């Protein structure tokens, strides 16, 4: 059953140097506050896993927490580049960043296999692209019934997955709704899980389009109102598109980024 703790305690306990860490949330419900907490606690050598690195990984990469990125689309949605991601890949600053690069369909299916306790997943994907030439975790498999060739990708099983959700009850059952992305799979695939929530409530009122993650698959829950900002939590906040646009200027240069880390993350 999930423990209800502070985010600082949870990150201290659950996220360790060298871990494979997935912070998921597809545009919606991105666990941004947890990402900043990982920076504050000075984690190093993380393998960061996420379909869309977004600002949360731009920050972790720029702060030197990561040695590898497993991903499928690394842009600032609606704005342009992730400059800290680019600086790491193009110039190795602040540290070289190994890449393991897939398509969205491949990443989603890797989490599915991880959640399902299977070593791999099968999809119609990658055929004819250069991805398989640069990514060793893309192979071919043959259908034993039809002889067709399909793509196989290995399961993703993060040491720890972090997500943000709208609510949890006091037993640690977690409820999220709206665009729920790949969060269920990312949680079920992980060895440990931290969920930050907008609020902890006595009872989870059933909601349309909601999913509940039972407390017995959640390690820790922390109440962090606004923990997705500048991403959003449907029913609690709107996406801060202006911050996404403003991030372009903050992240474009190393010094402005470092100032942001000093003045905002460590404020």
């Amino acid at each position, binding site marked *: 059953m999930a423990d209800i703790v502070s985010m600082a305690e949870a990150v201290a306990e659950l996220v360790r140097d060298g871990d494979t860490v997935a912070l998921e949330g*597809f*545009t*919606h419900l991105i666990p941004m506050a947890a990402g900043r907490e990982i920076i504050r606690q000075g984690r190093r050598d993380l393998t960061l896993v996420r*379909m*869309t690195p977004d600002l949360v990984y731009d920050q972790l990469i720029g702060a030197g927490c990561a040695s590898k990125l497993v*991903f*499928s*689309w*690394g*842009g*600032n*949605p*609606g*704005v*342009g*580049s*992730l400059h800290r*991601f*680019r600086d790491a*890949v*193009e110039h190795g600053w602040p540290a070289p960043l190994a890449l393991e*690069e*897939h*398509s*969205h*369909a491949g990443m*989603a*299916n890797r*989490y*599915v296999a991880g959640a399902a306790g299977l070593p791999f997943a099968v*999809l*119609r*994907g*990658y*055929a*004819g*692209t*250069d*991805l398989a030439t*640069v990514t060793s975790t893309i192979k071919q498999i043959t259908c034993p019934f039809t002889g*067709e*060739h399909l793509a196989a990708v290995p399961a993703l099983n993060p040491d720890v997955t972090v997500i943000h959700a709208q609510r949890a009850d006091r037993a640690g059952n977690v409820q999220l709704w*709206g*665009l*729920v*992305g*790949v969060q*269920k*799979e990312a949680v079920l695939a992980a060895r440990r899980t931290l969920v930050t929530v907008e609020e902890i409530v006595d009872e989870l009122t059933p909601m349309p*389009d909601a999913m509940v993650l039972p407390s017995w698959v959640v390690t820790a829950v922390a109440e962090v109102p606004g923990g997705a900002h500048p991403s*959003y939590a*449907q029913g609690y906040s*709107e*996406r801060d*598109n*202006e911050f*996404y*646009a403003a991030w372009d200027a903050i992240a474009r240069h190393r010094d402005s980024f470092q100032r942001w880390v000093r003045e905002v993350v460590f404020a």
Partner: protein
Amino acid sequence: MTGTDVPPTDPVPYTADEMMSVASARALADARCCFVGIGLPSTAANLARRTHAPGLVLVYESGALGAKPDRLPASIGDGILARTAVAVVSVPEVFNYWLQPGRIDVGFLGAAQLDRFANINTTVIGDYARPTVRLPGAGGAPEIAASCREVFIVLRQSARSFVRRLDFVTSVGHGGGGGDRARLGLPGAGPTLVITDLGVFRPDPQTRELTLTEVHPGVDVERVRAATGWDLKVAADLRTTPAPTDVELAALRQLARSLEAAPDPAREG
């Protein structure tokens, strides 16, 4: 909106970007459902729903099926998509149950680089291991390009985007030419239309090489050639795209205004 003003031969002046968006929207006249990337494809698809294709089903990779946003979404995960969708599904489901089986008529993609066979690069400029410019990467595009019944591509054209040889093949259009999609086992028909700010291209029925079939009003073939990194084929019956109508322009501009605090959506790969 960026782009060059077209001389006001038409009642309402419009930009090259507006012509591109209108031409893209028109292309969706016969589609029943469209898999929409953000940026130019989203503008085109939403414009089509507001003009000649009100029943067009928009599918977003964020899991919104049949979204009916009343403004331009600021990202593929904009809350308005979930709130107005017929159904909201998980990301694995949208790829596995909705895209992969070929349920989508048109996949609408952008590109950083395109080659003569409409293969797409959105991964790197330069060498993969030591890139000059690291682009966002694949996202949903490889499987959108593989599985939709057909694919439309929209991008601003220049000799830097229309290249002889891609630095990286992120998504396959027609591979090395005629028959390659079948050889690769790609189920959909691949790119059938490429729309730029200069004109419209369609693949040759045999060779699948892109052929200029329309120029936009005020654009001549030489200008298109100069913005193409290979020896451009031009259709014998080259036509001129009809200029945007007042109705189309009004709907497009209302859409553009609807996106508050508008970032530049064209910069998302």
